[in-house]
């Protein structure tokens, strides 16, 4: 039975194909259209999923959408009514789109699928889709489930239990009380974009002191012992306006919101640290309650807040649960996968057998290109490349370049599903190089220099560098660098504040150590990614270091590269030294000139 899951029309539209309970393919539309967070019907992703499954739309047995539009519409109307006459402007802005498109999803889905599909269309609820994406692919037979995000229909947070082939959501917190929206409100206040800048806020937090935490707890959010919470709506504007916060909020934090191009000050860093601390507090309290209420030892997480890997890492270290599994596509894109799995297990009642390793398959569920397709694309742009038919030779060659301080773009195998690049669409570098973070941020990614990079480490070796023994294949857990790997504090280090702290030596792997000595770890196994594992092994053989910097293959504002052509353009228009696509290796020095760098950067930077 072929089930197509869809998420679309809000942000991060995506498609996923599940066949008899097995995840065949999943991809986010932005990769195909090259428009970040693309919300349109995922035509490219659907086409890819069907191709990967070797089927056409006529072979689909069910299509599932990741939320219930009428329930969401009811929430919108009720909210507008509650705040009327305020909110008239957003109401009139939203209604045409609802009346034309969002209320007619069966018609829109039929249209998007080209009119060849005559089967049923199911609608899961938003949080059922998140919960399904968290539990069904997990390695657990039974587990507690916690989903937290901005908002779906009404629910913003829910918890429940997954057992065998069933999920049962037992409690929820409803709009407008939302941990995701609270975090987004601060994201917007600090001058970053809602729905995409939350990472930046999390990366900014370690530079600050959480001196506003008490203020947030006193005025904005009332947190109960079980982790449930209420937001004081007098400080927010998202129910009735087009902004997240209002004048009362700004007065509380001593200034108006930061403009995107304005300098980041210590106050912004402190605000970021404060909301991060409060978020962690709520997540821990909720998880504690879920642990007590269910008595279960394993936890599954999904929803946008589950991408807060700092909070996830803390949750793991607190030891509330023996093991935690987090859906790598925890945001709305993952809803497509969850919806399809929900239909197969929950709706169709098919048996489920959990796997030791999980059934997400390393999240390498996206498109891949054959050697021939790679060469055709590279030839079309007149790339000069050498072919390495033997995998071991190629891994050695890449490791040799990395050991010389080169930055390598690596494009191989199936693309990752979810926001993190896990070695198949990655930029790699030497984590021991003190200049690597700055070089990668400014010369390759063209992004803010304060943002940290993540380490990929050979599985089983993580405890040698980090205070962490659990595996973290999806880069969703932050752990502290071990004290014996940290650098000695130099005189004057204590006096450094804000971004000045970047100048202090932090550890023997400075490029992947944040200023608070934390790191967002990815553990790499040979089973999940043989090529990436071979590169790490070869790098360790040469240098004694089983880690590499691993960051997504894109520049700021650009979706992660999709095709070999995208990879080549990104390589040519940045200061990347080496590019590997499949079995082809390219060095910058040997390439013909390629005009258009400025336009390339501008088209993406303008959107960030």
């Amino acid at each position, binding site marked *: 039975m072929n089930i197509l899951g869809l998420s679309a029309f809000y942000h991060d539209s995506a498609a996923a194909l599940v066949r008899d309970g097995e995840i065949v393919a999943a991809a986010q539309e932005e990769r195909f259209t090259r428009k970040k967070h693309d919300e349109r019907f995922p035509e490219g992703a659907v086409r890819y999923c069907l191709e990967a499954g070797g089927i056409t739309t006529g072979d689909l047995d069910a299509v599932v959408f990741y939320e219930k539009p009428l329930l969401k519409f*009811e929430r919108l109307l009720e909210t507008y009514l509650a705040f009327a006459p305020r909110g008239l402007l957003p109401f009139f802005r939203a209604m045409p789109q609802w009346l034309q498109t969002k209320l007619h999803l069966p*018609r829109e889905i039929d249209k998007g699928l080209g009119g060849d599909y005559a089967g049923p269309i199911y609608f899961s609820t938003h949080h059922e889709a998140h919960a399904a994406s968290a539990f069904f692919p997990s390695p657990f037979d039974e587990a507690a489930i916690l989903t937290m995000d901005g908002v779906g229909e009404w629910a913003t947070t829910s918890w429940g239990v997954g057992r065998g082939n069933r999920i049962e959501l037992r409690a929820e917190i409803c709009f407008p009380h939302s941990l995701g929206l609270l975090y987004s409100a601060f994201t917007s206040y600090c001058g970053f974009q809602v729905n995409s800048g939350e990472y930046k806020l999390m990366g900014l937090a370690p530079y600050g002191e959480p001196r506003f935490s008490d203020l947030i707890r006193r005025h904005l959010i009332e947190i109960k012992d079980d982790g449930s919470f209420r937001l004081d709506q007098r400080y927010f504007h998202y129910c009735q306006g087009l902004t997240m916060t209002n004048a009362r909020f700004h007065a509380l934090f001593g200034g108006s919101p930061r403009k995107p191009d304005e300098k980041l000050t210590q106050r912004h860093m402190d605000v970021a640290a404060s909301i991060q601390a409060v978020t962690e507090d709520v997540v821990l309290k909720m998880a504690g309650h879920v642990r007590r209420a269910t008595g279960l030892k394993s936890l599954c997480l999904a929803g946008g807040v589950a991408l807060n890997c700092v909070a996830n890492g803390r949750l793991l270290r607190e030891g509330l649960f023996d093991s935690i599994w987090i859906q790598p596509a925890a945001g709305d894109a993952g809803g497509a996968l969850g919806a399809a799995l929900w239909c197969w297990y929950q709706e169709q009642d098919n048996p489920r057998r959990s796997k030791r390793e999980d059934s997400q398959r390393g999240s390498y569920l996206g498109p891949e290109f054959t050697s021939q397709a790679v060469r055709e694309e590279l030839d079309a742009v007149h790339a000069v490349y050498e072919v390495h038919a033997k995998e071991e030779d190629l891994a050695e060659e890449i490791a040799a370049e990395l050991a010389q301080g080169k930055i390598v773009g690596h494009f191989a195998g199936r693309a990752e599903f979810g926001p993190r690049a896990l070695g198949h669409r990655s930029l790699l570098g030497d984590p021991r190089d003190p200049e690597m973070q700055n070089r990668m941020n400014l010369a390759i990614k063209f992004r803010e220099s304060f943002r940290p990079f993540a380490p990929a480490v050979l599985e089983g070796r993580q405890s040698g560098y980090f205070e962490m023994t659990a595996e973290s294949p999806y880069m969703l857990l932050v752990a502290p660098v071990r004290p014996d790997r940290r650098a000695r504090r130099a005189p004057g280090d204590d006096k450094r504040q804000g971004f000045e702290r970047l100048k202090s030596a932090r550890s023997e792997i400075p490029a992947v150590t944040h200023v608070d000595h934390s790191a967002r770890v990815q553990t790499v196994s040979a089973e999940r990614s043989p090529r990436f594992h071979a590169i790490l092994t070869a790098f360790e053989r040469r240098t004694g270091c089983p880690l590499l910097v691993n960051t997504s293959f894109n520049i700021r504002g650009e979706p992660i590269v999709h095709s070999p052509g995208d990879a080549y353009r990104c390589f040519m228009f940045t200061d990347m030294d080496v590019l590997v696509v499949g079995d082809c290796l390219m060095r910058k020095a040997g390439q013909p000139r390629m005009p258009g760098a400025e336009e390339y950067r501008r088209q993406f930077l303008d959107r960030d």
Partner: protein
Amino acid sequence: MARRRSFIAELFDFILSNKTYFIAPIIIVLLLVGALIILGGTKAAPFIYTLF
């Protein structure tokens, strides 16, 4: 193309099963205003004017 239930039928079911009766007048008004705007741009415009 598959035969699907109409939006109005779906909405009617939703309102009844969720007891969200307040949605009905809002939808009716929105549809009427929408129809007026659309018809206002056609040859029917003078007749609409006489209605008021």
